[in-house]
């Protein structure tokens, strides 16, 4: 077996070795049990005191959501103004300009929502102040928001019947002090000592060996890249994201970065099982997610290793696979591996350009973001998967003719309505968004925007359609990667994707937390012979079928018009 394949297998195994103990640790941290990081308690007490927070105050699910939304709105306002006025603020050694209002609108929503879709380029679009005090700040707190929301859901199922779901601020702060910050320090140090810049030095200039004058963008990147991955954010410090040699200097850092984005979503599943004392349930969920991951990953790796058939016809050698948009130090296998994980988990960072991947790879990337629940983003992945679980419980209940139950609580009309609305939201946003974009592209090609609609697409035909579909799908999934050929920095895309990201972030947080809160408050029904067990293989299969059917029905026509059509055209 070649070293590229051994590399990705080793990366996956190492991820498991780290993520499983991390999950057990997280369960203890959020349950308030003793852990070895308790020496950080004084830091937390200090933060509580300075912020006027009393963590003994219990919140019900509505209060939890109020706290969550309040602080998120505050960040939106704060960040928006910094982005607009960054040219007048300090720490802008390269003299980059302020953002236009529509770009600032898009960027701030994108970072508050943990999406990190970027319509600016890191080198020329933001100052060091913005990178650190807005973007990196939001990478920490948006990840912590997702984790805290998931812990609220955990709380609802730990006790038999409860409306007291703990304190949102406590979960939020602990997600930072016990998880994101310590891990970021470790990852940032690894990156720095492997060549990623970490200092505040401005742009540099040198004369190259052949005599060209070259400018080099630098800055405090290592700190940013660490949390960008750990928090499943994905926004690059530089334009080329983790394909940039400064962001990702070697195969070693590549392994570290791709593992960083995987461990917390994985750990959260394990933590769920240990927290609610139903380990078997966690392992079944984990099993479904992992099988789903492999079903997307294996064809992706195969399709990239196979190379581009159009280049094969020209007679060159593609021994290692397709290389357009990829870096030699990672190779096609590790790039394909990354592209699956970054779309399955809502990171959206890239170490190779997705726009240049093979048509079928594009199909799997899109499908991974449409499902958005195999592991998924920090905390929110589990929330998305929870909606699938509720739908699966409901359908199985109908099939066997019993009242649906989840973990001892009756699932009734209200919960199902919420779950159904959240399920319908994604196809609505993705398909309506793509339809509007296609309409504008075909009928208003000359609209006087920063990029005219007729010039949006970097590639003609079916692939061009995929560029638009990808942009909208990535926004709804809060993923943030792109088919970057799309000319997206103009008022149409900034506003459209801004709105989609916002709805695609907050409704899928509110929905599951509300369902969990409602269920948790209901009378506990002890398990009997008639109970539909949710931790069995049969139910796992049922959930898998629900995920497959829902997504196939929603998206097959759109996928057929984009990547599938391109694939079959290339076969000719």
């Amino acid at each position, binding site marked *: 077996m070649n070293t590229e394949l051994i590399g990705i297998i080793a990366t996956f195994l190492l991820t498991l070795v780290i993520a499983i103990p991390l999950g057990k640790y997280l369960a203890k941290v959020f349950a308030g049990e003793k852990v070895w990081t308790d020496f950080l308690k004084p830091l937390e007490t200090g933060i509580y005191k300075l912020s006027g927070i009393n963590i003994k105050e219990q919140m019900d699910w509505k209060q939890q959501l109020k706290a969550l939304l*309040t602080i998120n709105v505050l960040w939106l306002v704060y960040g928006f103004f910094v982005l607009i006025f960054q040219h007048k603020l300090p720490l802008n050694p390269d003299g980059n300009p302020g953002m236009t209002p529509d770009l600032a609108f898009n960027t701030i929503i994108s970072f508050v929502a943990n999406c990190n879709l970027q319509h600016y380029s890191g080198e020329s679009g933001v100052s060091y102040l913005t990178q650190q005090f807005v973007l990196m700040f939001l990478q920490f707190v948006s990840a912590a928001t997702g984790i805290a929301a998931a812990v609220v859901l955990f709380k609802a199922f730990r006790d038999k019947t409860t409306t007291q779901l703990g304190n949102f601020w406590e979960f939020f702060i602990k997600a930072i002090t016990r998880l994101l910050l310590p891990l970021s*320090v470790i990852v940032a140090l690894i990156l720095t000592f492997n060549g990623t810049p970490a*200092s505040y030095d401005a742009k540099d200039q040198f004369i190259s060996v052949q005599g060209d004058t070259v400018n*080099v963008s630098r800055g405090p990147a290592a700190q940013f890249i660490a949390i960008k991955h750990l928090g499943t954010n994905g926004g690059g410090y530089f334009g080329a994201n983790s394909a940039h040699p400064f962001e990702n200097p070697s195969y070693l850092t590549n392994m570290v970065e791709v593992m960083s984005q995987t461990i917390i979503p994985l750990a959260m599943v394990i933590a769920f099982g240990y927290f609610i004392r139903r380990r078997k349930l966690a392992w079944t969920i984990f099993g479904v997610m992992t099988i789903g991951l492999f079903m997307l990953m294996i064809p992706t790796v195969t399709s990239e290793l196979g190379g581009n058939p159009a280049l094969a016809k020209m007679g060159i050698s593609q021994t290692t696979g397709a290389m357009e948009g990829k870096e030699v130090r990672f190779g096609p296998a590790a790039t394909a591996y990354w592209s699956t994980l970054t779309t399955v988990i809502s990171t959206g960072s890239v170490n190779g350009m997705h726009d*240049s991947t093979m048509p079928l790879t594009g199909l799997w990337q899109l499908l991974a973001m449409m499902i958005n629940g195999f592991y998924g983003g920090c905390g929110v992945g589990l929330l998305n998967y929870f909606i699938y679980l509720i739908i699966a419980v409901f359908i199985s209940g109908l099939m066997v003719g019993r009242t649906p139950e989840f973990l001892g609580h009756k699932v009734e009309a209200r919960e199902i309505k919420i779950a159904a609305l959240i399920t319908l939201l994604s196809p609505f946003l993705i398909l309506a968004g793509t339809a509007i974009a296609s309409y504008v592209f075909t009928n208003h090609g000359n609209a006087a925007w920063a990029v005219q609609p007729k010039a949006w697409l970097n590639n003609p035909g079916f692939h061009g359609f995929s560029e638009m579909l990808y942009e909208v799908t990535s926004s709804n999934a809060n993923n943030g990667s792109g088919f970057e050929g799309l000319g997206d920095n103009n008022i149409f895309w900034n506003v459209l994707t801004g709105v989609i990201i916002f709805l695609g972030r907050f409704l899928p947080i509110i929905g599951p937390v509300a369902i969990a809160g409602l269920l948790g408050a209901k009378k506990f029904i002890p398990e009997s012979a008639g109970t539909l067990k949710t931790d069995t293989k049969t139910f796992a299969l049922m959930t898998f079928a629900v995920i497959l059917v829902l997504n196939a029905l929603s998206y097959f026509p759109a996928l057929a018009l984009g990547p599938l059509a391109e694939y079959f055209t290339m076969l000719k």
Partner: protein
Amino acid sequence: MKKYIIQSIRLTLVLIVLLCIIYPISIALAGKLSKGNGAGEKITKNGKTIGYALLGQSFTKPEYFWGRPSAVSYNAAGSAGSNKGPSNPDYLKEVQSRIDTLLKYNPGLKKSEIPADMVTASGSGLDPNISEQGAAIQIARVAKTRKISEQKVKELVALNTIKPLMGLFGPSSVNVLKLNLALDNL
């Protein structure tokens, strides 16, 4: 509601101090101990910076090994791939012309020997490496232009080849800048 607003503002301020000042500055200070003092490792010649160890640069002269095609002409004040789709006809023409250029400057080279990385643009536009095969097909040209033995050039290529991590994980590659500097120092 008012309580949440005030708590949110205070918490945000505290976290800005922790996450945007204490954390990044500590890492920047630790970075001073790394190669290049945390500002990117430079390569100097006669006291002048002539490049960054991690960044590729443009080589077009026949006496140098060429790097990969770049969508940003190796301008490190920006970075990007071509974002060309695999079936784009303009893109395929571009690849064809790169193949023709390689064939023209490397007499005796067969099409089937050209590795994909030499005719496709990298993801960052700053890829410092080429594949071993990418270097191998250029050895004859470089040796002939510089009037040195192919054996000598081969040795230098081997010296500047980066093996898979621990000999086990990932691809091997050749650093173009370091290889060309080694040639100049002969």
